[in-house]
């Protein structure tokens, strides 16, 4: 009973990220510094994976954190956790950069000049730290068929569409669609099972 009550109280307590982001509204540099130290590695790793150039990746990371600093009110802590939102913002910016370079048209869900919506996380996600989270994602991805994993990575890290992936892998369009959908569903089931 006591543990249940404690769990409920814990779930209602604002996360450190939420508190720090709220402080940004009143230009609290110290809170910004803490947020950067907590998440800059994850953001940089993602952007570098997409752009594959350290100097360009650092430019994009700088843009992402400056956007957070200047427009922190765009993130609503009540809608979902901070880091998935920040990573989505970083991915969008990195893919924009990539597309500008390759002069491709934008095709993603979120427009590059807008801030991404906040993703609501399942309840069990609150208890996972970043390291365990990363280990779990890699483990689950490792359990997918190599083609599924490759297709998902091409979509996520390179921003390719079904047709572009099919062309790149020289596979039928329907097959690529199935790989991506089934792969994502298996990931989802894997997250739920791991919880």
């Amino acid at each position, binding site marked *: 009973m006591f543990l249940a009550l404690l769990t409920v109280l814990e779930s209602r307590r604002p996360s450190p990220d939420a508190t720090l982001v709220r402080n940004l509204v009143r230009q609290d540099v110290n809170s910004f510094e803490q947020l950067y130290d907590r998440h*800059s590695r994850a953001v940089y790793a993602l952007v570098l994976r997409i752009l594959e150039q350290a100097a360009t990746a650092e430019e994009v*990371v700088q843009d992402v954190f400056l956007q957070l600093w200047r427009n922190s009110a765009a993130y609503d802590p009540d809608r979902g956790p901070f880091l998935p939102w920040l990573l989505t913002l970083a991915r969008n910016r990195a893919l924009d950069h990539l597309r500008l370079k390759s002069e491709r048209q934008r*095709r993603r*869900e979120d427009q590059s000049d807008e801030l991404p919506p906040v993703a609501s996380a399942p309840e069990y996600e609150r208890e996972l730290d970043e390291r365990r989270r990363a280990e779990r994602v890699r483990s689950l991805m490792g359990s997918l068929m190599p083609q599924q994993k490759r297709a998902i990575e091409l979509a*996520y890290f390179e921003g390719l569409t079904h047709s572009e992936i099919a062309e790149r892998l020289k596979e039928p369009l329907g097959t690529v669609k199935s790989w*991506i*959908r089934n792969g994502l569903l298996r*990931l*989802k089931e894997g997250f739920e099972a791991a919880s």
Partner: protein
Amino acid sequence: MSDRDRFRELIEAYVLGALDPEERSAVEAHLAEGCAECSKARDEARWLVSQLAYLAPEAQPSDLLRGRLLETVHAEARAKHARKSSRSVPFWMWAAVAALLVFTLYTSWETVDLRRQIAESIARAQAEIAKRNELQEMLETNIVTDPRSVRIPMASDKKDMPQLEARWHARFGIVVAGQNVPAPSGTRTLQLWLIPKVQNGKPIPSLMLRPDAGGKFMLLVTNPPETMEATKALAITEEPAGGSAQPTTKPIWVGTVGSP
């Protein structure tokens, strides 16, 4: 398969950004129609897709990036703070407020003082009027009762007119009094004239007065325009409001001035 099921199958790929333009537009149109199930699936898929970021190999940005970023943020915070400080009630606004306050207090004080002055003036005027009335009554009484005053009966040719009586005191002036005197028509007034003894001398105009509502008539001339010795008679005519320089009507009352 229903439309909803078909779109539901596309939601994860839509969030991933893998849909081709036609499918993407179709899904967006479907979501815009308000499909609750697909909207919920989209929200869940956003979190799922965000987890793919952990597939990126670990990496750490340079300390230079951290330094550049914090330098920029510190500078912007200082600039914003400075702008905020400069925006927070500038000196001229305080000065304007102070001036307005002083002006308001001054005008309030001025108003109060002006009212006080007006009240004092009214009181002084009323006192002056009362004093003058008192003096006038005292003077009239003195003139009427002093045995040195010369009594001048003023008769009228008209039978319905009462007789008036004037008394002339060499020092205090002339008093003309009467009872049941009918009021002149309209705004016309009764005017006193001094008829000089010199031959062909023109009547000298004096004061004007209308009898009160009860017909009482009491005219006091404290400074007659001519001496008693040089005056042959007193006369009263009816004149337009404001009086005349010379009589315009025949005298109603005439009284011969005798010796004092």
